[in-house]
């Protein structure tokens, strides 16, 4: 369970989150909002990349301010642009990167890399340089590199924004099939509609928090 207790966040003088209280227990939660509504900041607070200026974020009871490393082991993060997330030159090396950081034995790393590549149809591209992959394959590689670490939760920050329709659908399918708990931050209303719960942010505040149909209706009404 992820809890946000009276979370406020400021960049200098600009307050981007203004008192957020949420308890996230569903398997699929989506966060929508206009540009600058604070949703990417909210996403970064969930795995301790940012700590709130005020308030608390707790992941399974662990305060992100007190033990960000333990929080990051529980919460994976998939960024909007996979090119900004892929660290190693080839596909299999990049998937192995996080496992090496955990200092796991070589044979376990090899076994988990093989499984992750197979899970995301990347086995035949395992020795490819990452820059030769298509946009959709790069996003799959980014997802594989995060999920190989077995996080309990995965935060997706606009995972389909840079993709064409076919790849959007493919990534949506991958997210739909994940056994892990996923928190989706997105403008893609089709992707958001597959969540169990949708949170609408506007100017740093939660303005709707409901099932997809009523929450998205409230979002669309605000945007028109």
């Amino acid at each position: 369970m992820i809890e946000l207790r009276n979370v406020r966040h400021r960049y200098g003088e600009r307050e981007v989150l203004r008192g957020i209280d949420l308890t996230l227990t569903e398997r699929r939660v989506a966060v929508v909002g206009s540009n600058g509504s604070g949703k990417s900041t909210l996403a970064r607070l969930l795995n301790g990349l940012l700590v709130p200026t005020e308030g608390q974020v707790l992941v399974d009871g662990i305060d992100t301010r007190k033990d960000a490393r333990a929080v990051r082991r529980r919460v994976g993060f998939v960024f909007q642009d996979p090119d900004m997330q892929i660290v190693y030159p080839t596909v299999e090396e990049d998937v192995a990167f996080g496992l090496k950081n955990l200092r796991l034995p070589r044979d376990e790393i090899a076994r988990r890399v093989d499984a992750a590549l197979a899970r995301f149809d990347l086995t035949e591209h395992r020795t490819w340089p990452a820059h030769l992959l298509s946009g959709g394959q790069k996003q799959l590689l980014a997802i594989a590199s995060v999920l190989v670490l077995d996080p309990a939760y995965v935060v997706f920050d606009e995972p389909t924004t840079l993709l064409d329709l076919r790849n959007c659908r493919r990534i949506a399918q991958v997210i739909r099939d994940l056994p892990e708990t996923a928190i989706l931050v997105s403008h893609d209303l089709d992707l958001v509609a597959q969540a169990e719960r949708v949170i609408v942010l506007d100017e740093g505040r939660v303005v709707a928090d409901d099932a997809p149909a009523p929450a998205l209706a409230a979002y669309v009404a605000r945007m028109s």
Partner: protein
Amino acid sequence: MLGLYLHRESPVHALPAGWKLLALAVSATAAFFVSDLAVLGAALAACVLLFVAARLPLRVAIDQLRPLLPVLLLFFAVQAAFVSWQAGCLMVGRFAVLVLLAGLVTLTTRASDMIDTLERALGVFRPLGVNAGKVSLMLALTIRLIPVLVDLVQEIRMAQRARGVERSPMALLVPLMVKTLRMADNLSDALEARGYDPH
């Protein structure tokens, strides 16, 4: 050359990265002491045979040298004009051996293996405050980001051309710098998110 590892099942690929890097260092040093054209010719032939042993087409070997051709020709011309044509051949031959061997090592060794080897080798400098992990990650990121930056430059150039700017270094450098800094910021977030521990 960087990051163009070509996977093959070959004895050259199977050699440990440390041995290949050591052999590269020794042969590159030895090449500069060779003063006999016949020996240098044999060394070049050996390089070609190593490409064959690595199951890499000869075209790949030629591709390693092609970008350096103007420089090699310049070296040859200067040596031939001021010393002798034999000296020009020796100079060009030495560089060709060096480039072919370096190319062979990068083509047959995964970046991660090379980086692991470098990290182990730099470990001996830890008491002097050298963080081998940081150095090796820096190398990995450099190899990884070269093609990303090339794409970025092309994208900015195209955007400038679309606006009628054909040749303006400032119009290229300013957005390139802004985007690169933003990229560095995002990468640092990504490294943190992926559990990277710099200590």
